[in-house]
C-alpha cells in the first residue's frame, strides 16, 4: 500500500538494504569459511563421488589361489586407469568394467616393476576420475586419520554394482619391507599402514581416500611383512608413484632403484673383521676376532662385540652385516653400533 510519505520512505528502504547487505555478508562469510568440497563429507555423498572413478579389472589367472580379478581407478577423463602390475594383466584383452556396468577392452600402456604399478587405457571421454596432481598437493595423512578403501575385494561386485568400501584409520607410516614367499618386493619406500582390511584377494589396485573421498594412496598387492611374517594392510602414497606414473604415460625411461651397490664396496676383509660363522641363517652378528693391525682393531672394535646396527639399519645376522656393508662405498665411514658386555657403543670405522 502506497501510504508511506516520501519524507519517511528513505529510512525504511535504507534499513532494508542494510539488512540485506548484512545477511549477504553473513552468508558470504559462512559459505567462505566452509571448504569448497564441504558438501562431500557425508559418507553416502563421498561414496557417490568416488564410485564412478573406480573400475573392476578382469584378466588372466583363476587357478590355484591366484585370482583373475583386481581393482583400479580412472586418472584421466579419456580413460587412463591406474592399477597394480600383476599377472591379471597378462591377458589379451584385459577387461575393464566401469561403475555403470559398461564393459571395455583395455590396452596395457605400460608398467613399472620397481613400483609394481601399471597403466591401462580404455576409450572414453568425460569420465569421472581422480586428479593425480591434486593428490600430490595434499598434505600427508596424520596417524589416526580416518581412511576409506575402495576396491573389488573378493570380486564381490559385478556388472554395475559399485566396488566395496572399507573404513579404518592410518595406523602408521613407514617404509615397506615386504615379501611374498621368498621373493622380496622391489618397492621399499614409504607406505601407509592401515587397519582396514585391504589385504584381500582382488583389492590390489584399489583406492585409499581420506574421509572426504580425496585420493591418497594405491592399495598394494597381498604381501607379508618381511620381519614379522604377518600379512600387511598397506597402500602406497600417490606422491611416491607420480614419477613412475609420468614415466609410463610419457613413455620415458623408468627410474631404477637407486639401491645399486657401489662399484667398490667396503668389506669385512678390508676392515679386518672376522665374524662368528653362520650356524643357522639367523646367527647373531658376533665378532669372532680381528686381524692384527687392521683398521677395525685399531679403531676400537673388539672380539665378542655384537654388531646391532650399521649406518642406521639394524642387522640381525652375519648375512645382514655383509649385505649392509655391500651398500657402503669403500671410502665412506661405517658407523657401527655394538653391544659389548652390558654397554652399547657406537664405533666409527674407516678402511684406510
Amino acid at each position, binding site marked *: 500500500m502506497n501510504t508511506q510519505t516520501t519524507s519517511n520512505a528513505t529510512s525504511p528502504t535504507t534499513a532494508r538494504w542494510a539488512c540485506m547487505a548484512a545477511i549477504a555478508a553473513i552468508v558470504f562469510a559462512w559459505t567462505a569459511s566452509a*571448504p569448497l568440497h*564441504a558438501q562431500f563429507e557425508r559418507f553416502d555423498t563421498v561414496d557417490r563421488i568416488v564410485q564412478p572413478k573406480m573400475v573392476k579389472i578382469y584378466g588372466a589367472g583363476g587357478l590355484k589361489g591366484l585370482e583373475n580379478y583386481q581393482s583400479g581407478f580412472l586418472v584421466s577423463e579419456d580413460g587412463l586407469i591406474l592399477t597394480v602390475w600383476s599377472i591379471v594383466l597378462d591377458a589379451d584383452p584385459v577387461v575393464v568394467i566401469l561403475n555403470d556396468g559398461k564393459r571395455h577392452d583395455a590396452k596395457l600402456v605400460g608398467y613399472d616393476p620397481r613400483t609394481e604399478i601399471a597403466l591401462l587405457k580404455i576409450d572414453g571421454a568425460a569420465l569421472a576420475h581422480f586428479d593425480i596432481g591434486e593428490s600430490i598437493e595434499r598434505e600427508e595423512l596424520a596417524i589416526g586419520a580416518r581412511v576409506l578403501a575402495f576396491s573389488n575385494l573378493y570380486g564381490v561386485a559385478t556388472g554395475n554394482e559399485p566396488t566395496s568400501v572399507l573404513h579404518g584409520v592410518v595406523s602408521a607410516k613407514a617404509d615397506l619391507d615386504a615379501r611374498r614367499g621368498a621373493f622380496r618386493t622391489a618397492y621399499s619406500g614409504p607406505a601407509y599402514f592401515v587397519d582396514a582390511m585391504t589385504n584381500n584377494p582382488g583389492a590390489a589396485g584399489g583406492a585409499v581416500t581420506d574421509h572426504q573421498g580425496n585420493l591418497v594412496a594405491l592399495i598394494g598387492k597381498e604381501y607379508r611383512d618381511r620381519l614379522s611374517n*604377518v600379512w600387511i594392510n598397506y597402500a602406497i602414497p600417490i606422491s611416491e608413484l607420480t614419477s613412475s606414473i609420468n614415466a609410463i604415460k610419457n613413455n620415458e625411461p623408468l627410474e631404477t632403484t637407486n639401491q645399486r651397490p657401489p662399484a667398490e664396496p667396503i668389506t669385512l676383509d678390508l676392515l679386518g673383521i672376522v665374524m662368528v660363522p653362520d650356524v643357522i641363517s639367523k646367527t647373531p652378528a658376533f665378532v669372532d676376532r680381528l686381524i692384527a693391525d687392521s683398521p677395525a682393531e685399531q679403531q676400537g672394535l673388539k672380539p665378542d662385540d655384537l654388531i646391532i646396527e650399521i649406518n642406521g639399519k639394524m642387522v640381525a645376522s652375519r648375512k645382514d652385516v655383509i649385505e649392509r656393508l655391500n651398500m657402503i662405498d669403500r671410502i665412506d665411514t661405517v658407523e657401527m653400533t655394538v653391544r659389548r658386555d652390558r654397554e652399547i657403543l657406537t664405533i666409527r670405522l674407516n678402511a684406510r
Partner: protein
Amino acid sequence: MTYHSTTIFLLIALFVLNTNGPANAQEDLSELHRIAVNRASEKVAPSIIQIETIGGLETVGDTQTSSAPTTALIVSSDGYALSSEFNFVKIPSAIFARLDDGQRVNVSIVARDKNRKLVLLKLDTDRTFPVPEFALRDSLEVGQTAIALGRAYQHDSINVSTGIISATHRVWSKAVQTDAKISPANYGGPLVNIHGQVIGLLVPLSPRGNDAVAGSEWYDSGIGFAVTLKRVIEKLDVLKSGEDLQPGLLGVSFKGTNMYRGQPEISVCPGHSPAGQAGLKPGDVITGIDGQRIIRQAQLRHAIGPMYAGDQVSVTVLRDDRETTVTATLVDKIAPFQPRSLGILPEKNKPGVIIGSIIKDSPAAKAALAPGDRIIAIDDVPVSSVNDIVNVVVGREIGSEITIKFVRENQTSSTKLNVGLQTGQSVETSAERPNDRTVESLVSPIKIPEFANEAFCYLPSRGQDELLGLMVWVPEAGPVNHEALWQQWQTSCEEFGIGLLVPISTDRKRWTPDEEEFIAATITECSNRFDIDPSRVAIGGKATGGSMAALVASQNRESVRGLAIIEGAIPRAAASMATDPNLPLFMYFGAIKNSEGEKNVKAIGERMQKNHFPVHIDLQPENPSWPELLARWLNTIDRF
C-alpha cells in the same frame, strides 16, 4: 515488492546455509574423532617402549617367529615394563629397548606371568619413565572406544588401530575383547580408552589353546584381546624378585560334565589340595567365591581364572543345608587324578547295579561280595546305577574304607572294602546275551550333514530291550570294503553283543584332523538311533586309524570310554590327555610280539600308565584275531 524480494533473499540465504551447516558438523566429527584418539594416544605414548630382539629360533611349532620390533608398556618408573610372551617365544639372544630419542639400552627378562602370558622386562638405564593411568574394570562397557597402540614401526612414533570394546570378561575373565586390529604390530602394547587410560595389555589369546602362540592366528581378524592388569600390578613385587606367576588352582572336580548347566557340587577333593586343606569335602556345593555368588561351574572358572597360585580365596559352600565359608590358598599344581577301582563287572542289561563277576585279587574279592548281589548304597549314599557308584567312589582316597550295602536273595547286608587303584589290567569275562534275539541284524549307513564322509553301522541280531556295546573302528585312510570288515568282526560282535561303526575318510591318503568332528558326530548319531550302552563305547584302529581314534577320543571324552590302538601311535595333540574323575578312559594297546610295533606300543602304553590311565598292553604271537581280543576287552570297560 521490496518486501517480497527480501523474504525471497532470506529464504535463499537460509537454503544455502542449510546445505553447508550440517556438513560442517560431519567433517568436524571425523576430525574430532582423530583429535580425541590422538590425544589419548599421546597421553600414554611416553610409557610405550619399542623392543628390538636379535637371534633366536626361526619357528616355534608351526608358527614363524618375527624379527620385527615389538612393544612393551612401562609399569614401574624405574624401568620395568610388561610385554606379551609371544614376542619372546623365539628365545632371542639379545633384547634392546629403543627409546624415543633413539638411544638403545639393554633389556633383560625378569620373570613371567604364566596366567596372562606376559613377561616382565627390565630396562638397563637410569632414566625414569612415566607410569600410565589404568582404567577401572567396572568402568568398561561394551561399545566404548578402544584404541590399540604399539611401537612396532618407528621408535619415535606410535602405531594406532581403533575399534570398540566387544566384551569385558573373556577367557575366564582374564581379558577384554576388542575389534581394533590386534597383531604382532601391537602385541605387548596397551589398549586404551578415549581418556588415555590403559584398559589392558594386548596379547594373542585363545579360549582353547594355552601355549604361547595360541590365538596368534587370529591377528587382524576383528577379535583381539587385552589382558587386564590390576592383579598383575598388585603382584609386581613378586615378578620383580624373579619369581614367575602361575595360574591358581583350587584342586576340586565337580559332578557332571557340563560346566554351563551343572552346579558346582564337589565330587573329588583330595586331602592335599587347597580345597581339601581348607576343609571342603565331596558333596559340598560351592555358592560363593570372594563374596561373588556362584550358581554354575562356569562361573567358578570365571572367578578363579584371573587368580594366581599363592592367592587366598574365600569359598562359601552349602553343606547339609547350611552355608560355611573357608579360606583356601591356591596352588600351581595338583597331582593328577588316579582312577578308582572296586573290582566289579556289572551284569549287563539289568536295572540297578548287580554284580556280574568279581575281578581276582581286587578289593571286592577281599570283601564278602558275590555275583548276583545287588548294590544299593555306598557309605549310606543310595546308588541305582554304575554312574552313581562312580560319583561316590571318586571322592574317596585310594586305600580308604567304604561300606557297601547290598541285597542277596532278598536279604540286605553290608560289607567293607578299601578303595583300590584302577590299573586297567586284562580280566576274564564271558558273554551274557539274552536267549531270544528277535531284532534282526542290520547295516545302516550313517550320514552327517555338512560332511562328505560316509560311515556304516553294523548291528548283530539282538533282544528287544538289549543294550549293545559299540566298537568304533577307524580304518586307515582311503576307500574301505566295510562289508569285508564286518565279516572279520561279525562272530565276535555276535558273541558279545557289540555293534560296529566304521567311519570312512574322504582323502585317499590320510585322515585330516577336522574329520574328528565327523567321527564324533557319527558316534552321537549311532547312540541316539540304536540302543547303545554308553559305558561300553570304545574307539580304536590300526596304525594311522589308531592315531585318528586317539585324536577323536581326546576331543570327545564324554562319548567314549575305551581307546584301542593296534600297532600305532598317539598323535601329539592327544598325548597330553589327562585323567578326569568324571570321564574314565580305558586304554588297550596291542602289537605282535617281537615286532617293530611292540616297541612303540610299549612306549605309549607306559607313557599313558604314567599319566594314571588304566592301560592294558597286549602282546600277541603271530596272526592274532584282533576283533576277538578287542570285543572281549570292550566287554569289560564298564567295570568299576
